[in-house]
């Protein structure tokens, strides 16, 4: 008797519900991007809300609209997330790795300050106050906005308050490029190793008063560069990376070290002429 009641009750219930659900599916189905269903399928269906969306489906919709990235789901496994990323094609295509590059060598050991900046310790803020107090208007302020901007911990300030970019960690997201108020950072393929390490537009030796490693626009690098690879523009050498050759020749005669070679292991290398400049300044002015 009990069994019959149970079967009757629950069986009846399921029958009714199944019918209702089926009819509802047929009648009330709303057409949507089919990818939503597939992505939802790949999600764990925990409907936990940890992703910040009210459930798995809204999250799937956000994923399909590319408003969110799969990593937001804490419940899914790594493969699951990769699977979704792969399905939606949100992964980066195969192209040469790019990294952020800094166009300034004026650390506090070589470049001078004209005024003492007081205020928010941020480059953006300082740049608004008479350019930040650095003698060279174009130079790095060394307050580390780029360091803060980098989510990947790829930038550190060195002892002379110059940002150093860790090429392995940099993902070329470009956040630092946007953050720098002096526009000193830009994204380049890692293979571009010859590098103009200065942005000042003044010509002549007076600029050395401001910064010992500034480009004086003497033009030697442009002369020495093979195939017109370097041309002078607005008192600055510009490397034409379209016909780039991996050579250190152009920097041999640079008197200040404004053109450098970014060695993957050894870091910044300057030409022989400029080395004493760097060395003495590092020795005499650099505090311990």
């Amino acid at each position, binding site marked *: 008797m009990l069994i019959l009641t149970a079967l009757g009750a629950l069986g009846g219930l399921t029958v009714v519900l199944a019918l209702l659900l089926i009819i509802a599916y047929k009648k009330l189905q709303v057409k949507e991007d089919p990818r939503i269903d597939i992505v939802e399928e790949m999600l764990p269906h925990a409907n936990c809300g940890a992703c910040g969306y009210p459930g798995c489906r809204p999250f799937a919709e956000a994923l399909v609209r590319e408003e969110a990235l799969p990593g937001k789901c804490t419940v899914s496994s790594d493969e699951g997330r990769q699977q979704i990323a792969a399905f939606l094609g949100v992964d980066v295509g195969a192209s040469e790795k790019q990294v952020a590059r800094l166009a300034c060598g004026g650390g506090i050991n070589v470049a001078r300050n004209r005024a003492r900046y007081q205020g928010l310790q941020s480059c953006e803020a300082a740049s*608004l106050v008479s350019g930040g107090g650095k003698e060279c208007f174009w130079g790095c302020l060394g307050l580390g906005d780029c360091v803060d901007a980098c989510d990947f911990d790829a930038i550190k300030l060195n002892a002379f308050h110059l940002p150093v970019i860790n090429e392995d960690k940099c993902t070329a997201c470009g956040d630092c490029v946007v953050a720098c108020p002096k526009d000193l950072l830009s994204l380049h*393929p890692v293979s571009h190793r010859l590098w103009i390490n200065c942005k000042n537009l003044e010509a002549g030796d007076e600029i050395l008063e401001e910064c010992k490693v500034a480009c004086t626009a003497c033009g030697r690098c442009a002369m020495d560069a093979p195939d017109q690879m370097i041309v002078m523009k607005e008192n600055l050498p510009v490397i034409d990376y379209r016909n780039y050759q991996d050579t250190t020749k152009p920097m041999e005669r640079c008197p200040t070290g404004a053109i450098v070679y970014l060695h993957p292991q050894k870091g910044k290398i300057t030409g022989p002429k400029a080395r004493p400049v760097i060395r003495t300044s590092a020795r005499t002015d650099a505090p311990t």
Partner: protein
Amino acid sequence: MLHSMFSNHLPTFRHGIHPPQFKDDTKDKPIRHFPFAPVMVIPLAQHIGKPSVPVVREGQEVVRGQLLARADGFVSVPQHSPASGIIKKIGRVPGITGKMVPGIYLEPFPGSSQEVMEGRPVDVETATADDIIRAIQDAGIVGLGGAAFPTHVKLKIPEGKHADTLILNGAECEPYLTTDHRVMLEQAPDIMTGLRYLLKATGAPRAIIGVESNKPDAADNLRAHIPPDLPVTVELVEVKYPQGAEKMLITALLGREVPSGGLPIDVNAVVVNVATCAEVGRLLPRGRGIQERVITITGPGVEKKGNYWIPIGTPLRYVLEQAHAAPDINRVFLGGPMMGTAVSSLDIPITKGTSGVVAFRDAEAFARQNKIYPCIHCGACVEACPLFLNPSKLGILAKFKEYHAMASEYHLMDCFECGSCTYVCPSHIPLVQYFRMSKLVLRNEKAKKIHV
């Protein structure tokens, strides 16, 4: 405090602050002339808008008042020579932004009588509004109230709008500064002449001169000089910072609120600084160009405090030397202490927008010793902000780099950087600096692209 209690009946705006005035040192000092510096530095962009274009060569001799550079378009003004002398160089000169900017070096002839070149006068009776506006542009006049916005642009009433009141801004609410005060005392006739031009140019039927009640002598003097046929009144307003901001003055005098993102003309008003007006009244009848302006040199670091006629282009170093500034000055800023810009070098020149030079010594550099605490939500800034913003929230958002929320939800872009909030904040949070920076970030954001 006591003062504001007694002057409560005076028209004013809500909120705002009462910083100490520091005006006693200079307010009774008549305007005196200043010697010419050995080298004058004349930047080509002393105004908001496009820089002017040089019309002289290096080595050319020029006469005081001669055109050095012409205006480049409508939102631009010409530069006139501040002295008779020789053009040494056309190149880069130090600018207040710390950047080298295009400019002209001029070496005045020593001992020259420095006669001013006369030009074509504009007669207020016969000239049309457009003539006056063109003449104001030709005279190189920009707003002398601080913003250095080309005055003729402001006077050109846009299609479909009209001005019912011209307001002369004689509030001078910034502590330390007394230029406008002196101008109102000494140049009342020029102001009245200028008013005729301005009223004609804008077509406004009446003018009000708003003067803070701490300058009753200036108000009385102006009233005494009002010609019977001029529809002008002088009104005292409460002593409160930033009473001189055009929005606040409009609210105080007319009871209107300039709409967010709008201009005074949207509430049918045009605001011009009294010194600007005096300049118009002085230059236009003789067809001259602007070559000098009245500046207050003051501050604890300055010995010969006073109000001076200083030729445009005089380097700051020279100004401070002549005013016997102390050798240990520590912070020098152009303009008043609330809105002025600190300079990083004394090589930069006085420009048309400079209304004061204030020098502090080490002892006054308080900002440095003050420890910054987190915002304690005391609400002082909210009660100070004349625009009824919420600087506390804005500051917190800025700290967390939520610039978009600041602009979209908390009206960041309305902030006119008066500094009242920073002034009152007990936690010494550099609120205004946050806001300037945030605005810059937002402005740059669209412009910047990632480039290889």
